[in-house]
């Protein structure tokens, strides 16, 4: 092969050059988010303990009757309701509260609180319930035996058991009959540097009652808001140190 004779360029080299050129063009193409994705956690990289994902639920902004967060979660994870609500999986639910002393009414969402010392993780016999280094509590669907001990132990009733056969599950949200599941903080989104679906929906609805972020980032918006407003964690007396904080209770 003569030097500089591109007509006889080996196929592998040709494909490599062509891919590089295409990548360069696409990176600068309008509307593309490859630059943004560069900030996301690459596949295969472990979660970092330097981050602790958490959430602020501002009950003063949460609107009674609005269930945008619940619907968004159901759509994102393919949670379908049946005619038997007692067996339906609910990863996030709206709870209406009435103060027993003052009669004040509050509406707020409750989901997995992603506790630092999670009772579900402690009691799981196989270790299927686990907490990532970044604070997100998940269920390994391959090793969950469906004993439901975690559901007994969860102080927030945040977990659901799959009572029926499922079809059409989302690829990013593995689910299966006979196992336990709960809010994942939309880990598939978070790892791509996106917000959980409920937070996005709440913002889109104009309420901004949910703020997601890194609790350990002192410069971040979440930490800033937490330092500004009075908040509390649910059943803080149990010492689980949830990642979800509530304002307005």
């Amino acid at each position, binding site marked *: 092969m003569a030097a500089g004779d591109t007509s006889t360029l080996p196929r592998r080299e040709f494909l490599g050059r062509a891919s590089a050129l295409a990548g360069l063009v696409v990176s600068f193409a309008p509307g593309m988010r490859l630059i943004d994705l560069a900030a996301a956690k690459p596949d295969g990289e472990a979660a970092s303990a330097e981050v602790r994902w958490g959430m602020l639920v501002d009950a003063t902004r949460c609107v009674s009757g609005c269930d945008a967060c619940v619907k968004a979660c159901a759509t994102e994870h393919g949670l379908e309701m049946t005619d038997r609500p*007692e067996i339906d999986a609910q990863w996030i639910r709206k*709870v209406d509260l009435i103060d027993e002393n003052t009669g004040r009414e509050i509406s707020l969402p409750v989901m997995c609180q992603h506790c630092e010392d999670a009772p579900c993780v402690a009691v799981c016999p196989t270790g299927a319930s686990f907490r990532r280094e970044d604070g997100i509590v998940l269920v390994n669907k391959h090793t969950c*035996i469906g004993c439901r001990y975690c559901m007994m132990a969860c102080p927030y009733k945040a977990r659901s058991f799959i009572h029926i056969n499922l079809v059409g599950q989302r690829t990013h949200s593995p689910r299966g009959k006979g196992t336990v599941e709960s809010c994942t903080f939309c880990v598939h989104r978070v790892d791509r540097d996106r917000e959980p679906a409920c937070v996005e929906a709440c913002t889109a609805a104009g309420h901004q009652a949910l703020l997601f972020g890194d609790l350990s980032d002192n410069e971040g918006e979440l930490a800033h808001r937490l330092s500004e407003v009075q908040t509390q964690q649910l059943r803080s007396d149990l010492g689980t140190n949830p990642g979800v904080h509530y304002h307005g209770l």
Partner: protein
Amino acid sequence: MNDTDYHVAPAQGFWVFVLILVTIVIAALWAAHQMDTAGHAITGMNNQVVWGLPHVFAVFLILCASGALNPASLSTVFGRTRYAPIARLSGVFAICLLVGGLVVLVLDLGRPDRLQVAITTYNFRSIFAWNVLGYTGFIVIVGVYLACFMDNAPRGAVKAAGYVAFAWRVLLTSGTGAIFGFLVAREGYDAAILVPLFVAISFALGTAFFLIGLVLSFRWSGQVPDSEVLKKLGRLLAIFVLVVLYLVAVQTLTSLYSGRQRGVVEFLLFSGGVYPVLFWLGQVGLGSILPLMLLYSRRSRGCASILTASVLVLVGGLCQLYVLIIGGQVYPLRIFPGYRASSSFFDGVVTYYVPSLWEVLLGVGGVAMAVLLCLVAMRILPLLPRALPLKPGTLVRDP
């Protein structure tokens, strides 16, 4: 170790009993298969009551298993040689009951096909995982213990195995109690006293089961058990029932006094519909007061009374576990103290649970499995000591 002559149970009636029990076990397996293929939606369990009737039966059998070892422990650990001839029966009953309980527990899992995961992957922070090791260890240790006294092993070996088995069974039952006692978020359970309470319940239930098994197996072979043993075990049963009552009273009064758990106690004892009925009528009346009257009354100390009292104690134990396990779940979690809560996920309200036929079949099937294993063991192993022949036409004889 003793000089007793042992024999296997007679063939008479064996296959009839086996046929009946196998039928029940097959029905239970079929029920479990239905639950596995259709999902737990066909049961009465839901996202509020996650442990249903199968758990009640499983815990019942596991507690019975630990307590059934009482006569063997009395003989080896406490030096009561009178119980030595029935120690074999005691060990075999213990293993068979535990297997029955474990079968129910496993078949009630959401993924029973992942049993291998459960026994090979451990989270050592989990009390449940400790229990899985405890169950396996119990079968092995009691098996060795049994082999020691069936093989006329040296006294030292029997004693060592007996001590280990005794310690292990107390730990095992403590672990079962801890599964519930350490659930701090649920007001119906959060109490360390559940640990000794479960140990006491196991002593009562196991002794009751053993007494029934002893009388019936002796009658099956046309013999009468040692009347003194029956009488003494009957007295022990009465003491265990009293201890359980005492611990329940302490737990209840503590909860009522503290205020934090007052709501759930009032629910279970007074306002909770079926649960107060099961508590007062089942656990206290039929399961405690009546057996105590039968066991302490001078006029009714016969073998028939002991047998009846034992059956009643078992019925009371089932009621007690139902109230504890199911009642503790239907009562709502207090996630927001000081607020009345409501939601589409049954926050703040008492939920309901009605066991399905599948669950009843699975639970009863566990008992049938345990009894079936006991029968088969008695038929193939020399477990029954030679004793006085039974008088023709008598069910049981006064001790």
